[in-house]
């Protein structure tokens, strides 16, 4: 029996049934067993992902209420009109984007710098991995409780540090101008570890001789980083940036737990706006319209990611 390692010919080779067992290959392909294998996933997918996506769009055209059954009165494009002219809607979109702007650069740059530094360590990498990655494992609620305590006026550790340096204690979570920065700071602490691990793995893949050759040519460490490390990590970096942006767009947990979207809605992101409109104000139809707009935004950004990764897979 010849074993063909060539995939194309193996697939193209006509197959004949060896016995009438229907789970075997037939000339018409493997339709029946294939669908059996696909059904569990597809059923759940249709029922709980695709179905709701369609329902969401339908609901957005009605004034559906959380507590009343049925779709409610027809609103046409009213909900969309209201959302697109609502200062609260645009404010929440801005808060989401502002949060993204505040967190993505540090999460990318700091993680890269730390990975560079860790790469220089010959032993004890486990310690750095533990220190930076352990926060990432924590549920958001745990992280939030810890940082609420750190930010507590008068009693929190951070306030103590600031006042011991001679400054006034800032109102970390209660000052509308400062609250988002405080949330961003805590978030960087929380999620930097993931990017750190990604970068560290990427760094370890760069052949050492490249560096040796460069240093023989008299290149300083900084030049080596600029000319070798950064370009060779460009794939990782673009992945990190896109993943970070998508994750930041979906922010909910930290503002919800730490500031309730306040003070006075100064930190309320898009998803919390959906939550407030749909579940606090009972207006699920309107919330569905906002969700659809949010869906489109994130879909667009994710499409960029998929495009980037498919392009890289095709070998750049």
């Amino acid at each position: 029996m010849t074993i063909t390692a060539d995939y194309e010919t193996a697939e193209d080779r006509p197959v004949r049934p060896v016995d009438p067992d229907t789970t075997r290959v037939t000339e018409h392909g493997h339709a029946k067993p294939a669908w059996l294998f696909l059904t569990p996933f597809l059923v759940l997918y249709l029922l709980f992902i695709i179905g709701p996506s369609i329902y969401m769009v339908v609901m957005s055209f009605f004034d559906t209420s959380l507590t009343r059954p049925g779709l409610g009165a027809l609103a046409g494009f009213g909900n969309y009109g209201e959302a697109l002219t609502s200062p609260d809607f645009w404010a929440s979109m801005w808060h989401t984007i502002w949060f993204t702007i505040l967190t993505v650069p540090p999460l990318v740059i700091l993680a890269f710098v730390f990975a560079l530094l860790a790469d220089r360590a010959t032993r004890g990498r486990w310690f750095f991995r533990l220190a930076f990655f352990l926060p990432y494992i924590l549920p958001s609620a745990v992280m939030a409780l810890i940082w609420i305590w750190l930010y507590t006026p008068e009693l929190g550790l951070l306030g103590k540090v600031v006042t011991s340096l001679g400054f006034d204690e800032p109102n970390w979570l209660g000052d509308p101008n400062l609250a988002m920065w405080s949330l961003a700071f805590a978030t960087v602490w929380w999620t930097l570890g993931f990017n750190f691990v990604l970068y560290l793995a990427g760094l370890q893949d760069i052949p050492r001789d490249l560096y040796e050759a460069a240093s023989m040519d008299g290149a300083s460490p900084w030049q080596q980083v600029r000319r070798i490390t950064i370009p060779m990590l460009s794939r990782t970096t673009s992945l990190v940036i896109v993943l970070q942006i998508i994750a930041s767009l979906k922010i909910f947990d930290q503002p919800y737990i730490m500031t309730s979207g306040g003070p006075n809605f100064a930190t309320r992101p898009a998803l919390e706006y959906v939550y407030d409109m749909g579940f606090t104000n009972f207006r699920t139809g309107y919330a569905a319209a906002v969700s659809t707009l949010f869906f489109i935004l994130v879909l667009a950004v994710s499409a960029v990611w998929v495009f980037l990764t498919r392009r890289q897979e095709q070998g750049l």
Partner: protein
Amino acid sequence: MIGPVSRRTLLKGAFAGLGAASLAACSSPVGAGIAGSQLDPGTVDYWNLFGGGDGVRMQSMEDAYRKANPGTPLQAVTLAWGNPYYTKLTLATVGRKPPNVAVSHLTRMKTLQSADLLEELKPEDLARHGMSAEMFNQRAWNAGLVGGKIYAIPIDTHPFVLFYNTKICGQAGLLDAAGALKPIQGPDAFTDALAKVQKVTGQYGATHGINADTATPWRFFQTLYSQLGGQVLSDEGTKVVLDDAKATQVLTFLRSLTVEKKLMPSSIDYQGAIALFANGAAGFHLNGEWEISTFQTAKMPFSMTLVPNVFGGTYAVQADSHTLIVPRGGATAEGQLDLSLGFIKSMLDQSMTWAQGGHIPAWQPVAQSDAFKKLTPQSNYAAAADAAVYDPSGWYSGSGSNFEIVMGSAIGAVEAGQLSPDAAIAQIRSKLSALASTASPV
């Protein structure tokens, strides 16, 4: 390979053990989680939003219930005040696993009822537990009726009050022979009193929360505005009937106190306002009566009284009432309603304990008792219960609601000197009409 494997096995074993232990420790919720069955029948599940001093007091009342009813487990849960509490209560009721009894502000209970989230309480059931309409403060009771039907049992009225430092006010010459604050009538008298106190303290006459606090500015505004006879919303919140002239009058007066005459700090948060009064940097403090425990703990010389009738006319003061409600689906099990009503009666019977937290009991057997009448400083402002002005009806209105946030942030901005009265009124009108023109989802 053997060393690391056995370490992992040990850890995995511990892990599995923890999982099994937690599963064993609570078969009932797991059953409910898998099959949607009843949670803990025969107990009373009670949700409230009382933190701080009120929370401690409520806990002691709950403990008294437990002592008196050893056969009925009571499970009390405290959730964060305001919108988060009401959202969770709504979700639990829509999710068919509501608590058996829950606290609700009277101003919010109307919306919950319109959303069909409350069980109706029948007079005969209430009678069985010794409760009937005339045993409650009539103003609070009637405000809670919907179409003549009972959906809420009021336990108190908590008005906006005036705290005053007896020592400082004495030095300012504002106390009468008995050591109580002499009545203040009219805006000039009020301003004058604050100025006299400011001379004594050297800093401020009065304080109240402004920064990141939308409730307090609203309450102060509503008190003065209602004294002028003004209203903000009508027709269940679908119409904005703000009287510009009266609103301007109030806002200008407030602004004069903070920005122009600097008798009150214009940039201070809730806790800061309390601290200034407690430390004697101000002689007056405007807040809800519930802060009484804070100042008692601070061991400072203070008393409380009605907010003065600054603008004359019929006396009015902003207030809300706490009520106990039964969410829809919270009394389906056999005998559950009686357990819940028994708990409610127990809370009413302990109104004296609750009153010590500053609240005016709605339960007349206690409110009319000698013990309460002798309780100071509560008896100083007990009349507020009959002059209480509740927030206007509307699906977006009520304590801690979007309505209060819209009003409070504009009023606070005027007091902070960030908005002129005209600009504030324009902002209020535009935001409220957006809310008013939205179809009610309940």
